[in-house]
């Protein structure tokens, strides 16, 4: 009888413990994505340092964007300890941020930094990213303090690697 009680206590303790752990994991992996207006975001497109920046414009509903994400993640993983910074700028609608964007980033455990550009007056800011951007995504800006190149296209990992190698 004594041992039986002990087992009940033990199992309930384990049950409780694993529940806590699950809650803790959820807390740990719950991704917080900051939203910016273009004015707030614009300084991130400038640098005075030696860092190479790769800024990719995407959205969860944009299929070619999702297809190229693994290439960006792989390149980010490769260069993350160097003078390199990747930003994945989501253009998801603000209504979709909690429903689509946050779950997507959480589920896919994206390592590159994701931010949300929440500025619906696109005509006002598209040209400020690059004069040649017609406004479609995926689009990617690669820049250092001396050089900027803009690409309105999809990337394979090889293409992105070549772009960085030749920068």
């Amino acid at each position: 009888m004594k041992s039986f009680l002990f087992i009940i206590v033990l199992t309930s303790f384990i049950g409780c413990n694993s529940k806590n752990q699950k809650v803790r994991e959820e807390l740990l992996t719950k991704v917080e994505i900051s939203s910016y207006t273009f004015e707030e975001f614009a300084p991130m497109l400038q640098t005075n340092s030696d860092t190479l920046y790769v800024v990719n414009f995407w959205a969860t509903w944009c299929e070619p964007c999702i297809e190229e994400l693994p290439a960006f993640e792989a390149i980010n993983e490769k260069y993350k300890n160097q003078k390199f910074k990747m930003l994945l700028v989501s253009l998801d609608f603000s209504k979709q941020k909690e429903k689509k964007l946050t779950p997507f980033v959480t589920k896919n455990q994206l390592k590159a930094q994701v931010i949300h550009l929440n500025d619906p007056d696109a005509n006002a800011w598209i040209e400020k990213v690059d004069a040649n951007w017609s406004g479609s995504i995926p689009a990617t800006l690669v820049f250092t303090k001396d050089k900027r190149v803009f690409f309105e296209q999809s990337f394979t990992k090889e293409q992105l690697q070549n772009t960085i190698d030749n920068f």
Partner: protein
Amino acid sequence: MKKKIIYSLGLLLSIFLFTSNQPIASGYGIGDIATDFSLKNTDGKMVSLKDYKDAKGFIVIFTCNHCPYAVAYEDRIIALDKKYKSKGYPVIAINPNNPEKQPKDSYDLMQVRSKEKGFTFPYLLDEGQKIYPQYGATKTPHVFILEKTSKGNVVQYIGAIDDNHEEPKNVKVKYVEDAVDALLNKKEVVVKTTKAIGCSIKV
């Protein structure tokens, strides 16, 4: 040295790939004469601009089913057609996407969407994707306002519908309405081009 050659080859290759990915470097500018077309509507009939004998011009909108920006603008596109068709500027919607690349933009699903939303305007499929590159459409939705003249259909505005894709009630500037109103009043369009955010055309 070898490395350098490989890099240069890589660069050349990437330039080639990048440029070949973008066949739309050209396209129309303001003042150009836009081509007519004969494209299939969701009712099975072929539609051309020349069919519209009484039109003063056209609001040509490259749009589609699958793109959230296009969906966000559907009601506003219907409103544009209702407002301006009777004044001589009907909406002509063209789906520029390759349905093999984006099955949601198939002809069958265009018919479904047109019926669901009660489109009051033709919704045409750019079969073979011959028309959108001539216009220079790069995304959906992408608007080209044409004015019918003795020389042909002159491009008078290229760009976005308005300045807020997400919240119609927060729109401050209605680019398309402003342009069509100017043309109807025989005035020059003030804002002739804007940049619209949109989904890339699926080739």
